[in-house]
């Protein structure tokens, strides 16, 4: 025999064999499943990364940088040096509230938030210009002002603004950026060059200045900077990141990231199940081929290599197709995505394609490993008689390890281990439940008759296969329910956090003697805001023990001890606060305080504890009466502490209020009137920040929905393939029934009932687990109240049986009406 025994030829031989079989429709379901997995990963990786980058860009633009260091003391040069070392762009600025004066056209003065900047443009994004003034570059002796200052001070293009000792010409009107500088909400912003600051002589020893160092650069260097900052934990410096510009946005973004990761995992998991089932479907063919090749004299290692090469080829070609389809899908969806995001950034196509390709190949090996190993154990004796298929535990372990690698390629989640453990546990529990359901079905089988008996018998014919089908279909339904639930919860949560009439105006620093005047001003506009008295105070001790910031584990707790906060003085708790725990009336003694739950947790505050506060240098003690939970994203007046009024030693209070003012002109009018009639009291307009948050939330909701529908489409394909594994046995049964004289109607009834039964059984599994998981997610991730939902059960049953009925009808339609001869031929082509 003239043989060129070279390993180099094997990939080509394997390709030829793969291609020949593939042409005849072999490997098709595997091919489709891998393509779906690869397409999903490519699309979701790109889409997810693009959405992430676009949202971060949006947040970074709002912040004017990727990172901002903020402090009430000058920021140590060390951080500037570190930024230089990492090639980060920097921008120094400082802000403080001061009085601005104007002499012409008429004398006016106004409290302004003065920001002195090193460079006129922010590091990220651009300033939003207002056409009220002709725009010029910011040079020495010029300032940019917030447009509303024009009305407040009656300014025009020739006005000169006196800031301290120096006069400035107006070089333009720019919209304030509330994320860059929160103080901008309290007083109109004025931007000046940093180089002119000394000449104003505004800075004195007692000035309350906010120093900022803004940074921008590539992601890796920014992350490196954050790591160094977190390791050093410098005192008195806050780090604000575009990833978490404020607490509200951080929650929104975190949940959106979580969903993106969930969507990618679900799509791959669903495709993986499809591969698992399809590989079982092809297993008998692989075993027949391998038995024959072994009988012909194929050596074990050679066949392993040839078969592995065939796996490689199918993995590679189908993944490649998936990647191409994924990229096409991205290009098709791009115009739509660009309408959702004001600035849509396309993440790297190469990276997404690479991840898609690797994932496609990995998902094949992860989920088809068992079938591959089982096929490899085929004895050549199989050509004469059926031999047993042994499944070894170590192959399940390898399979699981491969899934682990696959998941870590797809998502960078810190709770990957958690997700996988839950996934493995769920699969085992699903399997045990499926066994129990089959056992119950077996018992029921004895008491049924006619077509139902035959349908159940058909299901029970291959119990192991049915268990796998039940687990797979159940898991797919479960994933769909879970995704539907999480998506709905996310969107509801985001919508409810910023409802239509979210307060967009805050009134602060209204002194008691100004209260009536301010109320009258608002009443003239048909507005009746509720005012809450607040006192500036600081928590200093718990149960007589001094609290120091060094003891506190969280930054939030440290900050609260270092600074004064607004503490509400009221004997009532706002209705939108939820009381979680309350001290019984019998245990009340002295004055009471209610505490927000996260603060209670941070300081380990319990009901009945005695808290000491420092109000203007005087210590006040209160007993903790209740722990409250509140929604920080609500833009209502929220307080960490609400203390009872002390009639004997009344606190010096000012008043705060929040309300929704629809009309911008009214807001501006009121701002002007308050400046004139209630000096020092401020109207803070937060409409802009609400709109920014709303926009980011809307973008997250759109991204989440797009990914959800994509996963839904991938799942339908799995359900189709899930029914294929038992196709041979099904046709055998129908062939027998047809031969025995069963009518087409009877065959249809038996065939389709089998699918409905399968759907119902899978729905039982899916609904129970979805219910359990939804409760867990509600409590642990979404901070929402868990609900038992009868609709979920009902919908799952109906959806499970209807989807399977539809899948059964579509996939079985050609066979249900076939003659005995045709069925026989189809059966022989499956061997």
């Amino acid at each position, binding site marked *: *025999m*003239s*043989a*060129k*025994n*070279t390993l180099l*030829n094997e990939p080509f*031989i394997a390709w*030829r*064999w793969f291609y*020949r*079989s593939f042409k*005849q*429709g*072999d490997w098709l379901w595997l091919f489709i499943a891998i393509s779906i997995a690869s397409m999903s990963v490519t699309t979701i990786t790109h889409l997810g990364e693009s959405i992430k980058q676009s949202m971060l860009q949006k947040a970074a633009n709002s912040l004017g940088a990727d990172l901002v260091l903020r402090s009430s003391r000058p920021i140590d040069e060390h951080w500037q040096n570190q930024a230089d070392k990492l090639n980060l762009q920097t921008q120094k600025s400082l802000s403080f509230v001061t009085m601005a004066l104007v002499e012409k056209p008429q004398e006016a003065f106004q409290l302004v938030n003065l920001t002195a900047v090193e460079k006129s443009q922010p590091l990220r994004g651009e300033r939003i210009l207002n056409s009220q003034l002709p725009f010029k570059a910011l040079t020495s002796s010029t300032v940019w002002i917030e447009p509303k200052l024009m009305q407040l001070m009656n300014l025009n293009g020739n006005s000169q603004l006196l800031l301290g000792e120096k006069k400035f010409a107006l070089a333009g009107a720019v919209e304030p950026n509330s994320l860059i500088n929160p103080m901008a909400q309290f007083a109109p912003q004025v931007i000046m060059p940093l180089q002119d600051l000394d000449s104003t002589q505004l800075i004195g020893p007692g000035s309350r200045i906010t120093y900022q160092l803004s940074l921008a650069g590539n992601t890796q260097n920014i992350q490196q900077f954050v790591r160094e900052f977190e390791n050093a934990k410098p005192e008195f410096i806050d780090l604000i990141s575009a990833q978490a510009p404020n607490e509200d946005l951080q929650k929104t973004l975190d949940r959106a990231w979580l969903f993106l990761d969930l969507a990618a995992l679900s799509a791959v998991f669903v495709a993986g199940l499809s591969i698992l089932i399809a590989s079982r479907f092809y297993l008998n*063919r692989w075993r*027949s*081929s391998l038995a*024959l*090749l*072994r*009988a*012909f*004299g*194929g*050596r*074990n*290692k*050679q066949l392993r290599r*040839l078969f592995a090469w065939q796996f490689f080829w199918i993995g590679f070609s189908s993944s490649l197709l998936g990647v191409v389809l994924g990229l096409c899908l991205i290009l098709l969806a791009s115009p739509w995505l660009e309408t959702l995001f004001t600035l849509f950034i396309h993440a790297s196509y190469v990276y997404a394609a690479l991840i898609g390709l690797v994932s496609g190949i990995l998902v094949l090996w992860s989920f088809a490993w068992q079938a591959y190993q089982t096929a490899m154990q085929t*004895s*050549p*004796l199989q*050509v*004469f*008689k059926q031999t047993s298929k042994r499944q070894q535990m170590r192959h399940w372990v390898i399979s699981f390890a491969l899934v682990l690698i696959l998941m870590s390629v797809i998502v960078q989640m810190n709770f990957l281990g958690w997700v996988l453990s839950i996934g493995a546990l769920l699969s085992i529990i699903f399997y045990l439940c499926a066994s129990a359901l089959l056992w119950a079905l077996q018992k029921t089988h004895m008491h049924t008759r006619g077509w139902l008996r035959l349908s159940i018998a058909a299901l029970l014919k291959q119990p192991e296969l049915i268990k796998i089908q039940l687990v797979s279909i159940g898991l797919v339904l479960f994933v769909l329910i879970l995704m539907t639930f999480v998506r709905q919860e996310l969107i509801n949560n985001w919508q409810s956090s910023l409802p239509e009439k979210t307060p967009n105006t805050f009134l602060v620093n209204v002194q008691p003697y100004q209260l009536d005047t301010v109320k009258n001003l608002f009443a003239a506009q048909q507005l009746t805001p509720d005012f809450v008295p607040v006192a500036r105070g600081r928590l200093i001790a718990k149960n007589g023990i001094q609290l120091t910031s060094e003891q506190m584990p969280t930054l939030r707790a440290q900050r609260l001890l270092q600074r004064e906060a607004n503490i509400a003085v009221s004997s009532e708790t706002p209705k939108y606060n939820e009381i979680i725990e309350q001290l019984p009336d019998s245990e009340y003694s002295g004055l009471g305080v209610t505490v927000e739950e996260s603060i209670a947790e941070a300081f380990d505050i319990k009901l009945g504890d005695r808290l000491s506060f420092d109000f203007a240098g005087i210590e006040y003690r209160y007993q903790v009466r209740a722990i409250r939970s509140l929604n920080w994203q609500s833009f209502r007046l929220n307080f960490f502490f609400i203390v009872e009024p002390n009639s004997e030693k009344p606190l010096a209070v000012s008043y705060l209020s929040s309300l929704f003012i629809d009309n911008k002109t009214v807001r501006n009018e009121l701002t002007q009137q308050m400046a004139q009639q209630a000096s020092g009291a401020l109207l803070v307009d937060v409409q802009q920040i609400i709109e920014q948050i709303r926009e980011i939330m809307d973008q997250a909701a759109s991204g989440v929905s797009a990914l959800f529908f994509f996963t839904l489409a991938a799942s339908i394909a799995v359900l189709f393939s899930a029914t294929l594994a038992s196709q041979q046995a099904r046709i055998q049964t129908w062939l027998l029934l047809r031969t025995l004289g069963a009518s087409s109607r009877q065959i249809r009834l038996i065939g389709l009932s089998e699918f409905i039964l399968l759907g119902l059984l899978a729905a039982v599994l899916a609904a129970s687990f979805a219910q359990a998981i939804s409760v867990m997610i509600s409590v642990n991730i979404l901070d929402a109240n868990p609900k038992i939902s009868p609709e979920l059960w009902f919908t799952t049953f109906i959806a499970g049986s209807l989807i399977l009925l539809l899948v059964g009808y579509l996939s079985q339609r050609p066979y249900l009406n076939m003659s005995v001869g045709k069925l026989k*031929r189809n059966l*022989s*082509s*499956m*061997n």
Partner: protein
Amino acid sequence: MTTAAATISNPILALENISYRVQSDEQTLDILNGCNLTLEPEQTLAIVGRSGSGKSTLLSIMAGLEKPSSGNISLLGHALNHLNEDQCAQIRAQQVGFVFQNFQLLSSMNALENILMPLELFQIEDARDKALAALDKVGLSNRAHHLPAQLSGGEQQRVAIARAFVTTPSILFADEPTGNLDEHTAAQIQELLFELNQTHQTTLVLVTHDMNYAKQCDQVLQLQHGQLQPW
């Protein structure tokens, strides 16, 4: 291949006291119980016996697909019971052919591709020409691109025979090659098998129920109670 195993004698196939035992839950079943046989090159041998008498098991042992429980077996001068699975496979690859009752054609490959498969497995040159020639010899050159499901039973068995002879084996094992065919087709297949056997000067071991078919062989042995007895 390791040639450490000793050559027993000149016959192409020799069985010496071959036994095969199967251990079921509670009992031991003796399928083969001291089978002896000697087959010279180019001879034809038929093994007959009732269903379940162990004919296929004996065939798989003779072809080195299965190890006997005890006894010695020599195929083409190699003591199979001293060889490992890969060494047995190499002997089959080089000098053994098979024809099966249920044809064992791969359903997703057409007639030509089924014949090409063993040639490609062993990377034999001019594989395609050889496969086409083999198809021509069994009279199916016009059916080269048909799938097994598109061929009749007789045609499928012809493809299987072409596949068996394409690697020019020294010995051919045929397990009930006409068992799934009607009388007329079976006769045609018998004729073809013997004709090709003569042309290629192959040794033939045939397992069959059909006595008329068996009688055409040089030697007929009956497998009864696990032992080979002359017919």
